[in-house]
């Protein structure tokens, strides 16, 4: 382990090209704090997600449409998954934003990489949110036959 990886942007960029302008707000500090706060919450949310989906019962073999319908019948798991989606996407997007800022040195490259990142992140968060809020268990015939909510037995 003799290889040394310099800290990003260290030494290689002449100080006169330093892109840091005087910031008028504390966005970067709030982002730093958000990473730590969301990180702690995500450890709980994601470990709970992995335990309930992969460790208990038949593990991954139990997962199918009916399994998802069963979980989202409970508001607890709806809120759990919604919080996990938003926090994980914001945490991950901010992490990748930091990496882009560190390694993409051309202004245009940085701008376009971050634009793509934000578009993909917004699409994913909105798609996931829409799926959780508009999920309909009755589109599955198997579920529809057994759940009163879908008119089974009526």
């Amino acid at each position, binding site marked *: 382990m003799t290889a040394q990886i310099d800290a990003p942007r260290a030494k290689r960029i002449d100080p006169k090209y330093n892109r840091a302008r005087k910031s008028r707000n504390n966005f970067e500090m709030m982002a730093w704090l958000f990473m730590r706060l969301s*990180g702690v919450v995500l*450890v709980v949310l994601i470990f709970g997600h*992995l335990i309930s989906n992969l460790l208990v019962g038949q593990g991954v073999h*139990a*997962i199918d*449409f009916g399994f*998802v319908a069963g979980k989202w019948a409970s508001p607890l798991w709806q809120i759990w998954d919604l919080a996990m989606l938003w926090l994980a996407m914001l945490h*991950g997007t901010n992490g990748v934003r930091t990496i882009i800022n560190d390694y993409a040195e051309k202004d245009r490259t940085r701008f376009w990489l971050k634009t793509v990142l934000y578009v993909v992140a917004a699409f994913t968060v909105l798609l996931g949110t829409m799926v959780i809020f508009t999920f309909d268990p009755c589109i599955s015939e198997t579920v529809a036959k057994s759940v009163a909510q879908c008119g089974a037995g009526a």
Partner: protein
Amino acid sequence: MWSWVGHRVTGVVIFFFLLVHVLDTALVRVDPGAYDAVISAYKNPLMAIGEFGLVAAIMFHAFNGLRLILVDFLKQGPKIQRQLFWTVMVVWVVAVVGFGARHLTLAFTGGGH
């Protein structure tokens, strides 16, 4: 330095999986059969090895992230960062072995299928 490299690499890997995972889960809104078909791919033993790697990455990122928080917020944090790092490695190995034993057994024995 290596824990910092590991944190970045695992973070990026987890982020890309998350994008795919939201897309595959979104199929529950479209068609139950399509969702079941895609999820059955996750039950194949080869994928189980990939899932094992992913969960190992998640656990490293989680435990090392908690270590970063302790280093940042504890008064004694920076002084004990090396001990914390080895604690993270021990907890990580134990957790990964435990998860691997359970998940890979399920995957390779078919879990009753």
